[in-house]
């Protein structure tokens, strides 16, 4: 049986590409309203071929009730 070599692949805009051929990057955006984690991959030419974002909403909306007087 021929020896098999598994090459980790990742799905990108250019199809499945070897992870080793890509450079991984990430960045955080932290504000009072949003915390965002972005991770993206560039190919050898520098093009972003995969870009993911994970957003955390730390606080929702407040609806204030007001009752009028008579």
């Amino acid at each position, binding site marked *: 049986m021929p020896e098999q070599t598994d090459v980790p692949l990742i799905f990108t805009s250019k199809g499945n590409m070897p992870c080793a051929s890509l450079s991984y990057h990430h960045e955080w955006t932290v504000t009072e*309203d949003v915390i965002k984690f972005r991770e993206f991959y560039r190919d050898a030419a520098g093009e972003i071929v995969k870009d993911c974002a994970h957003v955390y909403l730390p606080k929702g909306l407040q609806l204030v009730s007001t009752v009028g007087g008579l």
Partner: protein
Amino acid sequence: MKKLKQSFTGLLLPLHSVATRYLARIGAVCYANAQAACTSFKTELLNGIHALGTTVVRGGTGADVFKGALFLASGSRGAATTVYSVTDEVSGSGYSAGGVTFTWIAPSATGTTAFSTPSGSLAWSTVTLATAFDAVLLYNSTQSNKAVSVHTFGSQTITAGNFTLTMPANDSTFALLRLV
């Protein structure tokens, strides 16, 4: 006698006012009515119990189906939004128009605040959304796609990847929807 009664009353009322304020300050029980929207009413609103108008007829007890759809940064979703529409909704590989379905945590109240939050993250897997988007519209697809709320999160694009919206803690301070 009448003048004596008037001056006595004139003395008592201010004293009563001072005493009431003092008792309230020290936390003593004051039997007095207080103007407010009832907390139970707020929770019941979230449960669709009160129909102040005649436009909704409910035959069942199941919760409505709610969805979350993403909108372009160039859009204008906001407080004036009344219903979901495809105008300015994102489009791209892996994204289905109308967005994703979610359920709400059963509404409850703490103190005078009723609240609820989607029970899980809203997620879109392996999508490509090449045009910048920055908002999600939550709407009631059972009730003619009526809008619930708009939440913004900063402009971004997605390329052959995942986009996840994680919800806040479901409590009276941070829940996604809070009626105070």
